[in-house]
């Protein structure tokens, strides 16, 4: 219980231990702890960011899906429309073609009729001429009477 030199010895050893701790223990540990703290904070932040990214990606994916669906629906609708249009066009074309065919047929028929009429007219003229010849018993000068016959034929 006496105060003696131990006092000073203890002070010196205290100082030495504090110095050692200050040089070799404290800075190393604190820097490592701070580094870890930073690492953990970074990790948490990254996790947060990943969460946000995921949410964003999901939103984007849904949007893209919706867009794709809309697009598909649009395409289908367009295709339907086009098909209808094609059908309509085909119908119209068919009608036009039919009309054309009908008109052509009609024209041909008329032509035939006309030709038949001409034919008939010619033949009637010839027949009338022959009949008249026979009736008259004399030959008629074709050149002289042809105008008459033609007139007759035109009147038929």
């Amino acid at each position: 219980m006496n105060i003696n030199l131990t006092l000073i010895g203890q002070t010196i050893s205290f100082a030495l231990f504090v110095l050692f701790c200050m040089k070799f223990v404290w800075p190393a540990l604190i820097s490592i702890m701070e580094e870890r703290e930073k690492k953990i904070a970074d990790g948490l932040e990254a996790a947060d960011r990943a969460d946000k990214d995921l949410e964003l990606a999901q939103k984007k994916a849904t949007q893209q899906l919706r867009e794709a669906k809309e697009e598909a629906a649009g395409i289908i609708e367009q295709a339907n429309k086009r098909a209808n249009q094609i059908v309509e066009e085909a119908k119209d074309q068919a009608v036009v073609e039919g009309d054309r065919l009908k008109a052509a047929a009609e024209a041909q028929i008329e032509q035939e009729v006309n030709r038949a009429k001409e034919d008939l007219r010619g033949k009637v003229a010839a027949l009338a001429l022959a009949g008249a010849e026979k009736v008259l018993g004399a030959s008629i000068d074709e050149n002289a009477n042809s105008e008459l016959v033609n007139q007759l034929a035109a009147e038929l």
Partner: protein
Amino acid sequence: MASEELTQTGYIQHHLQNMAYGKLPAGYERADGTVMEQAGWTLAHSTQEAADMGFWAVHLDTLGWSIALGVIFCWLFSKAAKGASTGVPSGLQSFVEMVVEFVDGVVKDTFHHSNKLVAPMALTIFVWVFMMNLMDLVPIDWLPLGAQMISGDPHLFFKVVPTTDPNATLGMAIGVFLLMIGFSIKNKGFGGFMKELALHPFNHPAMIPFNLFLELVGLIAKPISLGLRLFGNLYAGEMIFILIALLYSGGLVLGAFGAGLQWMWAVFHILVITLQAFVFMVLTTVYMAMAHDVDEHH
């Protein structure tokens, strides 16, 4: 000396005497009756001899144990610091980091200035004082008996708890005190420090002597109370362990009672030793903060 061993008072006194190594004058009559032929350094063989050695003596046990424990602290913590990684800490590293983080938190709460010394010092104080206090939980006769057996000297004084030696606690308090004065002068200037001593609490030239007296007493009281608080708590704790140990000589029933008491006191003492280490650390930090407070008027 022999009579000291036999009586209860002797037992207590023996346990309270440090292993003093000091200088005895020529012609000094030793406890065993021999006379020193010439002045020389020797181990004290009795309390009286230790007292007669005066200031020029060292307590080998106090210094030995405190230095050994300090070396263990440095070795353990520097090992953890060297092997530390930023990954998941385990074992020693996580324990050491826990202590460091705790101390760091306490220091950051009380000390708001930038100083590279204060936090490591707080750590050193906390762990070192705790370890020295921890020696109090070792059954009081084990280590002294072991030392006596090894040295072959049955009268060897051997006190294993350095903090029950006022030299140890006051020595640390003096270290803290010197730092306190050093930082005060460094941060406030010598004039500022003197002004603080002379012009507080009454800022009037006529009051300077009174102020000086008050502030000086307050200043000196800091290290003394710091050291004596730790010493007193641990000394009282050890005293109770010694008194309980006396029960073992009182027969089976008293001995069993003593064993129970010792266990209870040891459990309670775990709180005391931790608390005292903590208090020493916090007060040191507070004193350091006061030495750094330039603007504060108190």
